[in-house]
């Protein structure tokens, strides 16, 4: 039982990552009608916001120590992070909390990147065929990825969670299991709660603001909304920026779980498209539900008990579920009719 509970937690955690990326993809697709293959790159850029902040905080003064030399003959270096020099213990604390701290930076940066991307490129593709959109955003994703690679290298760059949150919570005690049987890392719990918060904010925004109403109306019927004389262009830009922020924040918060590298966006891209389609193109609740559903099913499929019966099932479970759902429900879990069918 504890094993199953743990797998549900794993699934929710995994699902949270899928859901956040899929949410942004769906927002963009539903409102703007654009298939954005660069969305994974936005997720990756978010993660690299954290990397950059971490690097900046750890920017060090270098003093050479001529008394010692490295094995290759140059003088040894003594490095001190500048923030520690300036702020002392508070500086050390800032370094420790660099990942949560990055969120403050990631929001404006991702918003800016999103707006730039929409204004500079995407808006020229609203009326173009989906194939063109896919190709141009895919090209953009490669370009962004290669730029990051040239700046940060190809290897993963570790980002530690704050020391206080590095341990695990004993959920077993809380839920009435034996102590120590259901332990779960604090950071993963935080990630889950954070995702729920973001999803909540996005839905609240769409539900309760006039802005959101226009966006929802646009998702339902773009042409009509355009006819109402609303400046739809401006709203499109904001939606794209918002989707970029959601993807970016998902990236920032994921870094302690998965040390980021330049390729992480591509790794998530295909999966998140499967999630979006299983949820139903253009359906926000569908994207979120599919994210969690696939996350949980993937976790269960990875259990030894399951794998012993069906070897390799964890390799294909997501795709298998996608096939079954699309055959049973032609437009995914909550898809509307007529979207992306021709």
């Amino acid at each position, binding site marked *: 039982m*504890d094993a199953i509970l743990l797998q549900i937690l794993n699934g929710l955690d*995994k699902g949270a990552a899928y859901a956040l990326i899929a949410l942004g993809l769906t927002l963009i697709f539903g409102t703007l009608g654009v298939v954005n293959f660069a969305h994974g790159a936005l997720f990756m850029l978010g993660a690299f916001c954290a990397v950059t902040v971490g690097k900046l905080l750890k920017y060090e003064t270098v003093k050479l120590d001529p008394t010692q030399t490295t094995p290759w003959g140059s003088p040894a270096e003594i490095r001190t992070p500048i923030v520690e020099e300036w702020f002392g213990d508070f500086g050390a604390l800032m370094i420790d909390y660099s990942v949560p701290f990055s969120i403050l930076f990631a929001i404006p940066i991702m918003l800016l990147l999103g707006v730039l991307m929409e204004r500079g490129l995407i808006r020229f593709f609203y009326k173009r065929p989906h194939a063109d959109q896919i190709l141009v955003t895919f090209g953009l994703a490669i370009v962004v990825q290669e730029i990051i690679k040239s700046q940060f290298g*190809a290897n993963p760059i*570790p980002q*530690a969670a704050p020391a206080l949150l590095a*341990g*695990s919570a004993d959920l077993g005690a809380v839920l009435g299991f034996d102590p120590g049987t259901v332990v779960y890392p604090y950071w993963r719990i935080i990630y889950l709660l954070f995702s729920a918060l973001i999803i909540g904010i996005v839905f609240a925004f769409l539900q309760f603001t006039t802005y959101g109403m226009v966006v929802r109306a646009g998702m339902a019927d773009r042409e009509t909304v355009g006819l109402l004389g609303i400046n739809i262009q401006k709203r499109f830009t904001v939606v794209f920026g918002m989707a970029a922020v959601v993807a970016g924040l998902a990236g920032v918060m994921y870094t302690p779980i998965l040390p980021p590298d330049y*390729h992480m966006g591509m790794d998530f891209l295909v999966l998140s498209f499967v999630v979006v389609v299983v949820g139903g193109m253009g359906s926000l609740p569908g994207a979120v539900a599919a994210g969690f559903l696939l996350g949980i099913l993937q976790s269960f499929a990875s259990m030894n008990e399951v794998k012993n019966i069906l070897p390799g099932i964890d390799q294909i479970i997501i795709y298998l579920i996608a096939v079954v759902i699309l055959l049973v429900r032609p437009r995914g879990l909550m898809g509307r009719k007529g979207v992306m069918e021709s």
Partner: protein
Amino acid sequence: MSLFDDKFSRRGVLKTGLVGAAAATAPFHFVRGASAADYLNMPKGKSVTFGFNVPQTGAYADEGADELRAYKLAVQHINGEGDGGMLNTFSSKALKGDGVNGKKVEFVTGDTQTKSDAARASAKRMIEKDGAIMITGGSSSGVAIAVQGLCQEAGVIFMAGLTHSNDTTGKDKKANGFRHFFNTEMTGAALAPVLKNNFGTDRTAYHLTADYTWGWSQEGSIKKYTEKLGWKTAAAVRTPLGAGDFSQYITPVLNSGADVLVLNHYGKDMVNSLTQAVQFGLRDKQVNGKDFAIVVPLYSRLMAQGAGKNVQGIYGSTGWHWSLTDEGSKAFVKSFGKAYGFPPSQAAHTCYVQALLYADACQRAGSFAPCDVLKALEGFKFDGMGNGPTEYRAEDHQCFKDVLVVKGKENPTSKFDVLEVVEVTPRAQVEYPADLLGGELGSCNNGA
């Protein structure tokens, strides 16, 4: 008649009118291939071309870049530029710093993309277009085996880069292929005594294994040697390559009763699974009254940097480490560090050594013909290359040398100072009979 002998087939083309247009145009090209050379890509001018085939894109791009740095350094040293590096400590003094066999060494590069197809395409380009006499490099076993097969068919020597699977010099060994790097069998043999000393003989191991040939090979070797110690294996779970999030494989470990987790992962998989295993508190856990232990059988320092502090105290093996203090290692670290400003990785080391070994063999053979080089390399004993006295075993073209057991360093002094050497396992302890891993070398191929 033999269908496969190409002297016949060339005549066969002219006979068979099957491919009209081809037959009409084909003979033109044969002039190139059918020249008087004794072997493929026989160097005719004042230079000879080596082909460096490394991953430049994909997950191992950084490792590939480091390999390329090492190769460039090796070429400089062979041509007599720079400080000579390991040539000064190498036991064979055949190379004089004036190229090989009087010819200056040049090189061409290619991108393997860590894909067999791309790696073979890139190697073929270097052989067919650039006239490379030897191909070397690579950062994964799949690629190494694929390119090794290609070099065997084409008729050039392949000096494997970083490849750790048993198959490279086992099941899939080829006469034209040589490996300096160690393998999973040696890792098992080297690691087991250290594990015994640190964790005792009453342990239960839980394996997470990358679900492909190298992973299985690694899992098999560790199981074999730890079970000899008296360890039990609780489970061996296969994980998909590039799973990213391994939580669903890690949580079952928590209550499995196992007290050792063996991560048979490499590269990004290793970084992610180790980071996450530590996050789940496995490093600090107590099971059966013992401290829980994590073991990463194959360490790569470059990659371990990606796991940050999570590697601290984690045992594993590695081919070579820059902190070694023998003369050869010191010379190499010095010239590499001077050129690039940071220490070389184990991938750089093995590639550098492979390039020198090949050049040396050509010099000693007085020829670049693969079959002559092969004779010079087979059974070749040497020293001064960082791993103590080493031998290229003739039976399987595998180098036998010391293996390092390392541990993630608790108090690193720089970002390169990630691992500390716990023990240098002597060569005798990791040797195994040549027929253990199967396979057939076949005969050498000169091409042409």
